């Protein structure tokens, strides 16, 4: 591989990470939308499309391995490849959480929800903001944007606590609701974990650009 081809491949890696991140964010959005509209078919579609995101992950991982083996990258190049390697794992897990939400939607079927959806859509909206900032940070190689995205994880955690609190109240009042309430709790848990993966990605973006590897938002 020539130096120019190597440079092109490094750019492609970042472009493909952005594409994978967009798809993972989209999967989360569609899973929560399926819950909101009680659309089991849409949930099944999210589950089916997870394979494509898994395939992107495998492809990126293999390309990183090939570059490590053949190019002996150093400094910024090494940090980019090592970061892409780590980022794809987090994005793949993010998509797995979309799949998890979709499975909860399927289990709920057409049964009535135990409470109106208020905080879960808010969590999802917050996650979409985080995804946007995260992907802008990758595109612009901007650690400030990455830190900004990671800082929003607190809001997601806060909303998840509210969901937990509300659902506990409902379950205590009427144990009949427990199976359905648990499904919403599972959804909130998946969203909270998805936001954690975004935070991980942001940490890697900071490392890629600055060489500084630190946990964000601890």
């Amino acid at each position, binding site marked *: 591989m020539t130096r120019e081809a190597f440079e092109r491949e490094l750019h492609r890696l970042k472009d493909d990470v952005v594409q994978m991140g967009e798809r993972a964010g989209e999967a989360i959005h569609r899973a929560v939308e399926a819950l909101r509209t009680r659309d089991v078919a849409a949930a099944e579609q999210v589950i089916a499309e997870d394979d494509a995101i898994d395939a992107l992950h495998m492809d990126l991982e293999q390309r990183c391995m090939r570059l490590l083996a053949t190019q002996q990258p*150093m400094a910024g190049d090494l*940090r980019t490849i090592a970061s892409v390697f780590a980022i794809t794992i987090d994005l793949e897990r993010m998509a797995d959480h979309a799949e998890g939400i979709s499975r909860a939607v399927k289990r709920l079927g057409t049964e009535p929800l135990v409470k109106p959806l208020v905080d879960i859509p808010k969590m999802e909206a917050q996650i979409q903001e985080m995804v946007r900032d995260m992907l802008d940070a990758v595109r612009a190689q901007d650690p400030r944007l990455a830190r900004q995205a990671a800082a929003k994880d607190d809001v997601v955690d806060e909303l998840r606590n509210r969901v937990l609190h509300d659902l506990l109240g409902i379950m205590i009042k009427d144990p009949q609701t427990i199976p359905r309430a648990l499904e919403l709790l599972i959804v909130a848990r998946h969203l909270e974990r998805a936001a954690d993966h975004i935070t991980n990605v942001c940490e890697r973006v900071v490392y890629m650009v600055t060489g500084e590897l630190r946990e964000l938002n601890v």
Partner: protein
Amino acid sequence: MQTRTPALIDHTTGIQAQDVHAWFDRLHALRGISMTVPERKVTAVIGPSGCGKSTFLRCINRMHELVPEARVSGRVLLGQENVYDEAADPVLVRRRIGMVFQKANPFPTMSIYNNVAAGLTLAGERDRRKVEQIVEQSLRAAALWDEVKDRLHKPGTSLSGGQQQRLCIARALAVSPEVLLMDEPASALDPASTLRIEELARELANDITIVIVTHNMQQAARVSDFTGFFLDGELIEYGPTNDLFTKPRDRRTEDYITGRFG
């Protein structure tokens, strides 16, 4: 694992270069190098061809001045002593600061044994038992003893390239140097022999100070504790190897080690 050789470990020290300049006639090859090479560590010197890294190495043990029209200024401290002090004996300096070169250069007419013993004999050592003992110690320290112990009186040139390089290392070790300078010691060797030389450098650093010049960035990254990047006769960046290869501070270092120039 080779056994440690007590003869090699009783004294060692680091090097301090202070504002070292070097010229080849009117070519100003080194422009004020100041760097501290810590004792019993491996320090790598990297940089593109013509950057002055080998010249720097040859200034450390006063070999630069052997080139006609070559000059040096500044100080090179070995411990507390300036090797350029008027009272310093260059021959003694070179005994304390040994060197191995890119191409293995065993004395062609000499046996393996005599190659290693040569420095001792030159230094006036007459005790045959002692010479035998030091030859064995040095060959062990150079990780060569097991391969040559049954053919010590065969010519040094009968060995493979990698073995010849280790023979040269044994020869340098025989006179108990405090510092070993390695000028691209593995650039002519196959990958397996290269790794043996690298392992050897790491092992020797338990006892002596090693400075290695290399064009092979992965080698510098694998073998050294500290790395200095030279460019156009200047030391651009110097620090722990791990930092230099993962997050260099200077753009020129980044560009060089990522292959964007040089």
